[in-house]
């Protein structure tokens, strides 16, 4: 069982750090086209904020903020978003995962740009939710569920 840390420095710092890191995670996600990073890294960064919250503020804080079934749904939703981005081009007669054929009001090159953004978002959702889920299960021992 992870208890809340006694030090006010730790708890205050974690509270301050978590939203900042989350903002950085979102930046990594949407800026993956131009700079290092992308969905996977962004997902781990977002999940890491919940890990930090749990380590600093205790397991109860994590329980209040995270619903395991919602996490499972988000993880599945990420895969679904990826597959959907792959299937949508097929409606227009294109091959699976050919983002150039996505039904968007932009030209094919820009559509590919957005296709990459969609699937990166899907990857990020799945990775973030999965890591939080595994962590929840790992630290869960004497919690009545």
């Amino acid at each position, binding site marked *: 069982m992870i208890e809340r840390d006694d030090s006010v420095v730790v708890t205050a710092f974690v509270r301050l750090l978590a939203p900042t890191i989350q903002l950085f995670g979102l930046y990594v996600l949407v800026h993956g086209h131009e700079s290092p990073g992308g969905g996977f890294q962004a997902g781990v960064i977002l999940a890491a904020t919940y890990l930090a919250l749990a380590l600093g503020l205790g397991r109860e804080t994590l329980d209040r903020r995270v619903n395991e079934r919602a996490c499972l749904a988000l993880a599945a939703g990420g895969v679904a978003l990826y597959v959907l981005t792959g299937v949508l081009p097929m409606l227009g007669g294109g091959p699976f995962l050919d983002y150039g054929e996505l039904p968007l009001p932009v030209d094919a090159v820009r559509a590919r*740009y957005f296709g990459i953004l969609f699937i990166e978002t899907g990857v990020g959702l799945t990775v973030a939710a999965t890591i939080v889920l595994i962590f929840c299960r790992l630290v869960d021992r004497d919690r009545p569920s």
Partner: protein
Amino acid sequence: MSEPVVAALLVLLVLLAVTAIRASDLLPAVVALGGYGFVMALTWAAIGAVDVAFTEAVVGAGATTVFMLAALLRTSRRRSPAPERLRWVALALVLVVGLAIAFVERALPPFGDPAAPPALHVSPRYLEGAVPETDTPNVVTAVLADYRSYDTLMETVVIFTAGLGCWLLLRRHEPR
């Protein structure tokens, strides 16, 4: 990045790995493993693989360390010593595989060789195509998410399956 820096990082990697293996208390071993992930990330960055460095930093140095710590909370900090015979088998195995890798390594083209087969065949196609075809200056993202999208889709499915497996296996056993 200069070669002495990479060499120093590699030496540090070996030291951290040995520390992680030798520690009798598993908590320092896990911390050394986290340090190993971080130095590995620095090494990737030093040889120019920034995206891999990023992943290694967040996963190898970050998430894995926390997972290991959580696993230690559930189990024990003490290491159970391996049986004597098994250690010799392990040493022999490591030596054979290590020598095989060292032998095969000579057949690989030099690092960063522009005339190496992979640099001549598909890489130029991706490098030239990424911006005009996908509007994505970061070629790594273009390759992962567009040119090799099937791979990434299956990787995402693997991650989801791993999470689902952990969720089901680590459930508390409720008395019926």
